């Protein structure tokens, strides 16, 4: 039952992830952490970090979450439910590319969704910040990682790994 619910949530969320992998975070946090308590906020933050340090898309973090909730089966189900909606939608759109590109419905609804997603992400950042930023040191790490990723071309993977090393040494 848990597995079925988990699978269904991922399918819905991925079908609504418009504008990049990070867009799924507010939806996943609500469903997995707040509604079903399958993960703590801390574990959710850790899952994002895992998605970031592994190569390939951030959505790989769903395999990490799936494993935590339901073992290896959970991880495999997570990957299928994450990518199945993409495969179905993209192959249909690829066939009707020019109609889709010019579609008023698609364009105007996306124009509403894209800015809204930024607001949702900001709310999630605050909620995760309450869990992760507990003292001046963690605040400092967050500010430095923000500045480096926002204003330089250094890959976020290195920032996450660097922060892990700093954590091992000083926290």
């Amino acid at each position, binding site marked *: 039952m848990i597995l079925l619910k988990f699978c269904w949530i991922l399918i819905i*969320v991925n*079908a*609504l992830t418009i504008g*990049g992998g*990070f867009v799924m975070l507010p939806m996943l946090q609500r469903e997995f952490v707040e509604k079903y308590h399958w993960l703590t906020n*801390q574990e959710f*933050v850790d899952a*994002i970090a*895992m998605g*970031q340090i*592994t*190569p*390939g*898309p951030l*959505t790989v*973090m769903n*395999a990490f979450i799936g*494993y*935590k909730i339901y073992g*290896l089966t959970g*991880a495999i189900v997570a*990957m299928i439910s994450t*990518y199945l909606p*993409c*495969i179905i*939608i*993209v*192959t249909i759109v*690829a066939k009707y*590319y020019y109609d*889709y590109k010019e579609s008023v*419905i698609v*364009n*105007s*609804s996306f*124009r*509403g969704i894209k*800015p*809204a*997603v930024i*607001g*949702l992400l900001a709310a999630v*950042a605050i909620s*995760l*910040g309450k869990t*992760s930023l507990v003292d001046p040191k963690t*605040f400092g790490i*967050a*500010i430095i*990682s923000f500045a480096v*990723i*926002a204003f330089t*071309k250094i*890959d*976020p*993977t290195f920032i*996450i790994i660097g922060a892990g*090393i700093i954590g*091992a040494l000083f*926290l």
Partner: protein
Amino acid sequence: MTNISLKNIFLVFLKIGSFSFGGVYSMLTFFERELVEKRKWITNEEFIESVALGQMTPGPPIVNTGICIGYKLKKIKGALITTVGQAFTGTVLAILLAIFYTKSKDNPLLGSIMKGVGAAVVGLLLSIIYKMAGKTIKDYKTALFALSAFFALALFKLNPIGLILAAGILGLIVYGRRAR
């Protein structure tokens, strides 16, 4: 031009998925070099179209670009194989990390590492918000969409799935008429 077989498609996308970290643009350059320049499987025009399509469809843009290219090369089989290739290495590593993580959950060193990592993730999220806002929030209407969504989630705890659907419908009402 190398032979376009399912095996070769899988191998190329496995390579793309294994050596690309975070950054979207570095990955796109990688795609272009492997598929357009080196192997000549698709034309530059098809590549640009696939990138655009990846950004206009729900799901991770890079994966969707890959699915679109796979579909162009070998229909539905190609779409499946590019997805598996791209996600394979990351998934295996994520599962290994998850096994390690669940086993050493109470290890104090892992706790310290994840404390640092967690703080960096918050910084990463802020930088994503900053970059997305720079691209998307251009006038008072887009700012209003973003602020309403923020308060709806942060203060009123409304469901984000419902909020995204609502934003889509509002977008249709606000922008739909003028586009015609």
